């Protein structure tokens, strides 16, 4: 599939924080049903790329098309309503809302949302702790909540920004299973990861981001050959 028929296609994306130019022409695409990761060092521009796709960067230029529709000029609530859901790096759990309210906060935007029952069956802890303030959950539980609440919106394209950050290995493993099952349910996922091993087990393709640009693309199949390159990029 070429970039023209991709579900999400980003071309020459630039973005600025105030006066500081942070994305210098990111180009990437994600096909329907794929899991694609953005890899790279801290500060390379991975999270900023996600924020720019989501319309959260005030100043940006280039082209972002989703299902063939141009989104670069749209405000972020309209981008969300195209069917894209975003789970930010710091999870974005609201302390003034309890778990249930956090879970039910995002409006339904797609035609086939998962039901609340289904989501709660996937994440039983959220049902047990539904009356706790959102930020009283453990880090792992907050991450589950952040993912759970975007599943019941009906969005088909998920942007997950470093879901494994700061989590215990057992929870990272569980999260890997969840993301795998989301892919088999037909979700398309763009994932930012620092944890290369976690990413390589899940993703179909990887983009390497450096200095606000995509500098390399590695398919899962090339991973053996690619991992030497990866080490150079990630400095591990």
């Amino acid at each position, binding site marked *: 599939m070429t970039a023209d028929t991709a579900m999400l296609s980003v071309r020459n994306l630039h973005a600025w924080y105030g006066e500081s130019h942070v994305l210098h022409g990111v180009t990437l695409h994600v096909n329907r049903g794929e899991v694609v990761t953005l890899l790279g060092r801290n500060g390379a521009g991975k999270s900023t790329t996600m924020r720019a796709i*989501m319309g959260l960067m005030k100043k940006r230029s280039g082209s972002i098309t989703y299902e063939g529709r141009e989104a670069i000029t749209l405000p972020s609530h309209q981008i*969300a309503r195209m069917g894209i859901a*975003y789970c930010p790096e710091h999870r*974005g759990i609201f302390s*003034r809302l309890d778990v249930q309210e956090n879970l039910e906060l995002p409006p339904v935007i797609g035609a086939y949302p998962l039901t609340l029952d289904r989501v709660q069956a996937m994440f039983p802890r959220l049902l047990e702790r539904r009356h706790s303030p959102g930020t009283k959950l453990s880090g792992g539980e907050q991450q589950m909540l952040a993912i759970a609440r*975007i599943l019941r919106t009906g969005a088909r394209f998920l942007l997950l920004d470093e879901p494994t950050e700061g989590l215990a290995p057992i929870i990272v493993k569980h999260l890997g299973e969840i993301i795998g099952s989301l892919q088999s349910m037909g979700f398309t996922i763009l994932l930012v990861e620092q944890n290369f091993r976690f990413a390589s087990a899940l993703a179909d393709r990887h983009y390497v981001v450096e200095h606000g640009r995509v500098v390399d693309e590695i398919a899962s199949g090339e991973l053996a050959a690619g991992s030497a390159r990866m080490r150079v990029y990630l400095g591990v």
Partner: protein
Amino acid sequence: MEIFGIPAQALYGQLALGLVNGAFYALLSLGLAIIFGLLNLINFAHGAQYMLGAYVAWMLLSYLGIGFWGALILAPLVVAMLGMALERGLLRHLRDVDQIYGLLLTFGVALILEGLVAQTYGWSGMPYPNPLPGSVDLGFMRMPMYRLAAIAISLVVCLAVWIAIERTKLGAYLRAASEDADMVQAFGVNIPRLIMLTYGFGVGLAGLAGVVAAPVYQVSPAMGSNLIIVVFAVVVIGGMGSIAGSVIAGFGLGLIEGLTKVFYPAASTTVIFFIMILILIFRPSGLFGSTR
């Protein structure tokens, strides 16, 4: 009968007056708290919008013959719509700059509104007829019927607003957006519209307070600026942006003012500011405020 050497009737009378003042403090600081929570704006036009509510009620009565109860619904809507136009036309453009700009802009708007009203109707006040004459015997004292109604209206409105914010879906959007508006917008919620409606709602509450105040005080251009400084002190004491804090502090400080009038009248107009200073020293985020 005497309590601490004070005739009980005088004590009850001042407490009742304090509660009436508190009813207005609560309504006004509630609106300010809601606006500050989401817009991060210190709305200096709040007093002028309260004054506008009273004038709209007066105009409805004088020009259209619509009485108090009709004005109680209509005037807040008029003030809310003017507020939304202000948000759309001017305040929206100050979203990304320091909050001092919003404060100065709304202060300017307040001065313009006051000037326009004074230009048209003069600085001296105009009376507004009491819709509920007479008094009620509460057993321990007699209370003017309308003042009792003013307290009741304020209590009911504050409670309804609190329930709407804490227990409804729209309230959940408001609470979440007060924490992180970008995040809520990224979920597909039209935040610019929520901001406009929230500002309209907050100033609508000021307009409502103005209508309720019209029969108690005179309708005059300066009625808002006289009150708003005290209300800002109430907001600081309750905790900037805290909904429950603004209501509790509003009624509580009204009562304290009334008590001061009984025991040490000379301090009655300054007691709230003394409390504000103490709060700023010992609990800068306010009684019910969260540090943010």
